[in-house]
Each structure stands twice: as C-alpha cells, then as structure tokens.
C-alpha cells in the first residue's frame, strides 16, 4: 500500500477509525456548523443555542424520552431497511402501521384475555394488517409491474382515508366524549414498563418518567433482523437480490416471490411500529386522531442514515430523537425551533455523502491494489 503520510486526511482517518465512526463525526461537525451559520444569519447566538440544547439533553428525563421514542423509530427504520436491502422502496410503512394500529386497538380493546395471550393477540393483529396492506403493492408489482414507490405512496393516502372513516364510524368509543378515539386497551393487553425493576435495583426514575417495555420488542426486532439477514438462507437470497438481481436469479432465487415476501415482511414489521404507542405509552393506550403519525417516513431517513444495518439504525434512531428532544424547548428561550430540522437534514445528508465517498475510495484502493498484484501474476504464470 501507499505511504500513509501522503494519503488524504479522509483516507487516513478512515483507515484509523473506520468509516462507521468517521462519517457520523464529520456529519455532526458539519450539521453543527451549518445550523450555527443559520442561527448567526438570523441574528441568534449559536453558542447560547447549543448550550440550551445541551442543558435539555443532560437529564434522566431526556434520556428516558429518547430511548422510548428511539425504540419506535428503530422499528420503523428496520421495517423500511428490509425493503431497501432487497432494492425495494417501501414508502408505505406509514399507512401500514396506521391501519395495523387501528385494527389492533379496536380488537385489542374488545378482547377479554389473560395477559400472556392478550399482548400477542394485539401484536399479531397489527402485524397481519400491516403485512396484508403491504401485500397490495407487492401483488401489483409482481403481476402488473407497478412501481412500488408510486403505489405505496398512494396507498398511504388510502390508508389515511380508510382509518379516519373506520375510526369515525365504526371503531370510535361511544362514551359521550368528543374525543375521536378507540377504547383504551385494558391492562391485560399492555406491555409492562421498566420502572419497578429499575427502582428495585436503586435506580428510581424521576416522577412522571416511564421507561417503556416496548424497548424489548425493538431489541428483539433488531436481533431478528440481524439473524434473518446475515444468518438465514432467505436473508442471503434477499441481500443477493438487492445487490445483483441477475445473479440472484441465476442462483435459483424466484424474483417475484422474493419481491412479494420482502414487501410483506416489511409491512409486517411496520405493523409493529404502532404497538409502541398503543401498548407501551401511558399517554395513548388507544388509537385516536392524536396517535403519533408519520413514523413511517422517519423510518426512511433512519434506514438511510443507519445504512440498513441493525446497529446503524439503532444509533440513527437515538441521534434523531436526541436532536428533536434537544431542540424542542428552544422556542421558550427565544430560538427558532426549526433549527432541529436543519440539524437533522444536514446530519443525514453529510453522513450519507461522506459514507459513500469513503466507501468508493476504499473500494478503488482495493481494486488498484488487486490490479497491481494480478498484473504481476500474468507475468509469473507461464513460469
């Protein structure tokens, strides 16, 4: 290899720390720089703004909130990433979890089951509905060649319409309140939280803070995603299909079946997103017009930022909500709240670009290295 001192800074950093560390660090620096300049241009003091953000984040309450919301985001990221890995763009995770959550909320609140059955029952409904809704663009793609980007985006609107209609006319609770919501899930159907365990080992949480049990589901989704992708035959075929469809076909993968299975799987995981607010968040435990929406779209950013990797998406989810959480109270201090969006956008774009550049460079270097070696081989071969 070439002398390290002569190589560009980026390459030296990459070989010392690895792109997985360097890219996010560079992205963070750029994001802070860009938002600082924006603040300066608007006549604000960026140092004070970031001091405020730091103060907000430096608390147990913030940590708990970031973990709770990060878990929802994580599952959304994985749902989208499964599709990305196969070259499928499931933009419809939003509609998939929305419908899944609505049905799960309605039937879950109606059912009278012991806790060991009640939770799986609700989860199963959400997963099935999410998967079935995702099967529509899958079938359209396989049989009619409809591009899944277009169909999943359009089906989001359909899902919004259907869920509003069902909620307003059939699934709404009839208790005289003005709230448009389903009935609240009974205790037997909720996921337990971590508060009691934590206080029993002396880590009592501040009043009002709840560390949601859904985090366990998110971790299980991550482990399952890893095993499926990197240990199973199906995951191998899925990754091959995403990287090189022609080679996948020649190796015996049925491309149509692969498309259909992957998009249904993506939708089924998307169905799990809504389980977070539904079974684990004390402010919800029901589906209403206040239910957290657009998590499916956040998942797109997170899959991209986490490079579809189970660990990468976890970091992406935490950073994403940390930015949201940190910039949330800025308005009360006289700063524009939009600075959060600027931070997120600049971070995402820079991280993706830096990663891509580093990957290409290291690939080119590897090829050049091999090319030099192989030309030596040609000369040596006849001997």
């Amino acid at each position, binding site marked *: 290899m070439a002398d390290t001192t002569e190589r560009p800074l980026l390459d030296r950093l990459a070989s010392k720390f690895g792109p997985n560390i360097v890219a996010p660090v560079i992205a963070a620096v750029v994001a802070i720089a860009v938002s600082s300049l924006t603040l300066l241009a608007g006549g604000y003091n960026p140092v004070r703004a970031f001091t405020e953000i730091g103060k907000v984040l430096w608390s147990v309450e913030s940590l708990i909130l970031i973990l709770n919301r990060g878990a929802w985001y994580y599952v959304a990221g994985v749902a989208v990433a499964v599709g990305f890995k196969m070259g499928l763009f499931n933009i419809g995770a939003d509609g998939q979890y929305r419908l899944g959550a609505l049905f799960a909320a309605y039937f879950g609140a109606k059912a009278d089951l012991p806790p060991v059955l009640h939770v799986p029952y609700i989860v199963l409904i959400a997963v099935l509905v999410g998967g079935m809704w995702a099967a529509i663009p899958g079938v359209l793609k396989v049989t009619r060649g409809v591009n899944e980007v277009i169909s999943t985006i359009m089906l989001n609107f359909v899902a919004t319409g259907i869920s509003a209609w069902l909620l307003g006319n059939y699934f709404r609770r009839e208790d005289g309140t003005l709230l448009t919501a389903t009935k609240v899930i009974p205790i037997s159907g909720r996921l337990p939280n971590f508060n009691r365990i934590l206080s029993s080992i002396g880590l009592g949480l501040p009043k009002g803070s709840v560390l949601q049990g859904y985090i366990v589901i998110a971790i299980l989704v991550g482990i399952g995603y890893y095993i499926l992708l990197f*240990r*199973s*035959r199906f*995951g*191998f*075929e899925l*990754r*091959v299909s995403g*990287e*090189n469809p*022609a*080679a996948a*076909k*020649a*190796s*015996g*993968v*049925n491309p149509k079946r692969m498309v259909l299975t992957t998009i249904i799987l993506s939708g089924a995981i998307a169905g799990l997103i809504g389980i977070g607010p539904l079974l684990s968040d004390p402010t919800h435990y029901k589906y209403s017009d206040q239910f957290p929406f657009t998590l499916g779209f956040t998942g797109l950013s997170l899959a991209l930022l986490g490079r579809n990797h189970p660990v990468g998406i976890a970091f992406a989810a935490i950073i994403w909500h940390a930015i949201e959480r940190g910039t949330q109270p800025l308005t009360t201090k006289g700063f524009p709240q939009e600075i959060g969006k600027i931070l997120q956008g600049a971070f995402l774009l820079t991280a993706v670009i830096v990663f891509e550049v580093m990957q290409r460079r290291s*690939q080119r270097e*590897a*090829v*050049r*290295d*091999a*090319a030099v*070696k*192989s*030309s030596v*081989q*040609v000369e040596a*071969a*006849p001997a």
Partner: protein
Amino acid sequence: MTNTAVASAVAIELRDIVKRFPGVVANDGVDLTVRTGSIHAIVGENGAGKSTLMKTLYGAHRPDEGTIRVNGAEQSFRSPRDAIAVGIGMVFQHFQLADNLTVWENIVLGDEPGSWYRIGAKHARTKLRELGVRYGLEVDPDALVADLGVGQKQRVEILKVLFRGARIIILDEPTAVLVPQEVDELFKSLAELTAGGATAIFISHKLDEVLAHADAITVIRAGKTVGEVPDPSKVNSHDLAELMVGSELPSPETRESTVTTDVALEITGLSVATPGQAHKLALDNINITIHRGEIVGIAGVEGNGQAELVEAILGLEPIASGAIELFGHDITKASTGDRRHAGIGYIPEDRQKDGMVLSFPLWENCALGHQRQEPYGDGRWIDRAASLARTEQIIREFDVRTPSSDVPALTLSGGNQQKLIVGREMTSSPKVLIASHPTRGIDVGAQAAIWEVMRLARSMGLGVLLISADLEELIGLSDTLHVIYDGRINATLVPAAVTPKILGTYMTGSARTDDPNLTATAAAAAAAAANGADHG
C-alpha cells in the same frame, strides 16, 4: 496501398495506456502508432483489451495512465464529443441506430443544425448522396433503417461519422456481422476513404482479412502491445497467431474419449420465442443430447441463440415448447433453484453480472447458487464456518490468488474470479455443467487452468455443455460439436475432423449439415474452401 505516400504523418499516437476496471486490468501499457491515410488493424484475442483501447481513443472513458496524441497534439478527451471535435469517429459493433427513423434522420440525430424548426433534411440528403458516391457507400437517404440489411446499416453508421467530419474512423469488429461479399465492399470503401486522406482503424481477430486489407497491424495480448507490423506483406497468419496467443500457450486438446452411453441431459424439440416478437423464434426445435463424460460444444456467431439456450436449460426464461430431461427426470417445469439443486452447475458468460455479487466476500460468492445445499447451509440457515472452510478449499485447489476468503470479490482479477466460480461449481458435485464462454477475457494462465478443470469434469463423468467463441477451444475440448445459426442447429460435426476455417463457414450459415440433400456437397465445398484459404 497508401503507406508510401504519407509515411511521415502520424494520425494517432498512444503511449503507455493503462485502464483498469474492477477485477480486470483491461489495458496495461498499450502503445499504438497509426499513420495518416492508412488502414490500421488491431488484432488480439477476445478480452485482450482491444475494445477498451478503442473506447479510450474515442473518449468513451478516460485512461488511468498514458498519453493520447492526435495529429501531433496531446489530447485529453472528456467525452466522445471531444473526440469527434478533433475528427475521431467510432463505428460500433452493435449498431446505434433508431430503427423507426429514416437513414437521413439517423444521420442528423444528435447533430441537428441548431434551429428549432429545421433539421436540415435537404442538406443531409445531398451530402449523404455525395459521400455515398465518393466512397462507394450508397444508401437511399429516405429508406427506413428497419428495412435495411446488416451491411447497409453499417454503411449508415460509417456515413454518420463521416457526416460529422470524422477523418479518423474507428471500426470495432466491423466484419463480425457481415457476409463475405459485404466484407469486400466494406474494405473497398475503406480504401477509398484512406486514399482521400482519411485514416481507418479496425479491430479484428480474423487474421486473413487483416493480412489482406491492413496497411499496418498492431497486436495486443493481455492488455499489452506485443507486436507492431508496419508491413503486413512480410508476415503470415501463423506469425500473427503466435503473437496473439503467445507461443507458450498450452493447447486445449482433450485426451482419450470418456464418453459413455448414459444420457445426462437431453433437450428435445426446444423452441423459445423472441421477447416481443411472438412470430419469430430465438430457438427453433433444438435437439441436443449430452452423455456422461462428454463435452458438447456449441459454436456460433454471437446472438444466434446461445444465450437463450442457456436460459432455457437453467429455467431462467420461459420456453415456447420442448422438453428438458436431466438423467431421465423431466425438469422442463422445474424452477431454476430446483434445477441447480438437482445438479446443474453453471459458469455464466458474464461472470460479474450473473455469477457473483462483487461487493460480497468470497465465501458468500462461493455459496451463491448453492446456498440451499451442504456445506453452505441446510436450506434454512447459512453455515458460515463450513462455507468459509469450503472457500479455503476452493482457493487452494483452484489456485485462486487472494489474501483471504473474506475480501470482497471485486478485489480479484478477472481470471481469479473465474477460477473461484469454476471452483465453487466443481466442488458442489454437479452432474451437468453449463459453461458459457468460460475463458473469455481472462489471462493465459487462468485459461489453461480452466481447460484443465473442463477435462477433469469430463473424466469425472459429468455431461458438459460448452459454449464458446474461441474456436480452438471448442475444437480442442469438445467430443461433439454443434453449430448454431439463427436459432437452429445447422451442423453437427466431429471435432477431430474440423478446422476453425470449416467451422467458420457453418457459423455464417453458408453451409449446413442438417439438410440431407446438401450434406455431402456443402461439407465438401466447405472443406475445399477452407483448405484453399488455409494453406495459401
């Protein structure tokens, strides 16, 4: 011809051109000097780097190293537009014409006069007629391109670059698609052109036509210039062939026959429709039987149905009719996965597109196509440790040169990638091996190794289907040789009794053995023609 008149002026001078692609060094220090007003031939085997060199010259990509001089001035082309600006035009092997437009419309396409309501029809027609008469390239400017024959389409391509003011014309294997009369006409036109001061560079691996028509020859082997022949009258085709392949080249000869009477793969009445053209068949009633221990070779000019045959055997594309049996089991309706699992090994023509995932590590590439079977997995899970062990074994036994089994496949050279593919197919206990151009574009050492594996496969009792454009390879390795032409098998030959020359006559469709009335006479005529040309 013209080499004495303008001997001093140099049109093109390339020095030390190096061009690398992932896994391949296509050009590795090529030098080329072309005199103004000459017909210059570039010869070399498949994959020697000829087309890459021409693309460099035409501005289709930039070389990694080296200099390009045109008429004495150093150039650095960023795009073909830069090349055409200094008078370099390229005629591609695969025509780049819009079939639904007329000749003159194709000519002005992309080079319209820059007015939004006028595209210069009158000017184009006049100039086309003028160019046609002057250089013997007459084509009706108002004819629809779809109605033209291959030779005429090529004329349109040449006219197109002349119309744009090219004085240096590059032709990539211009004769590959032409019948003999058309070849003569082409070279007559090129002679007219060069007599008028233009320069023509053509790529070929047909040595006879190179010797007959070129004013100078450059020989390329394994990405390097290995010979420059300023005066072709002083060399013969044997010298050229030796330069092209290198004298140390081992021969692909097989030894004693191992052919058995057990049928390994039987293809009966196979027909495949051309996509989008239901009435036209890409394969028409093909019957092939491959026995255990037999290598069945398929010769043919590319695009005559070889790709469709492979796809049909592997079940990659639907067939129109016919049956395929693997050791007596009908697999006509089986999925690709089931066929491969049943023991069909596959060495694809385009290894990087169909045979590997370049960004995946070697061990995952070894599992590719065998992911359902031991040792790579049990059908449900991938066994990483066993896959790694098997990959190590393949690397050792098939001499794949790599630092480890965990590096991405893109770091391997083309030859090593191919050895890895051949290795993974051979170690997965196949019963039938489909090898499509197994030695295309790889270095001589790897080529010899792969020939050795093919012989080994044969002696192990596999049925092998070998498709190749390398006629020496086909004749040397095959036990039975079919020639495919226009989707049909038009000749079945005994390899020991044929030469590349004879094979060539069948490949162009000018002779056939499947017509009972013609068999004797055509074969005799072909043999006679071949002998006459060969020993001349």
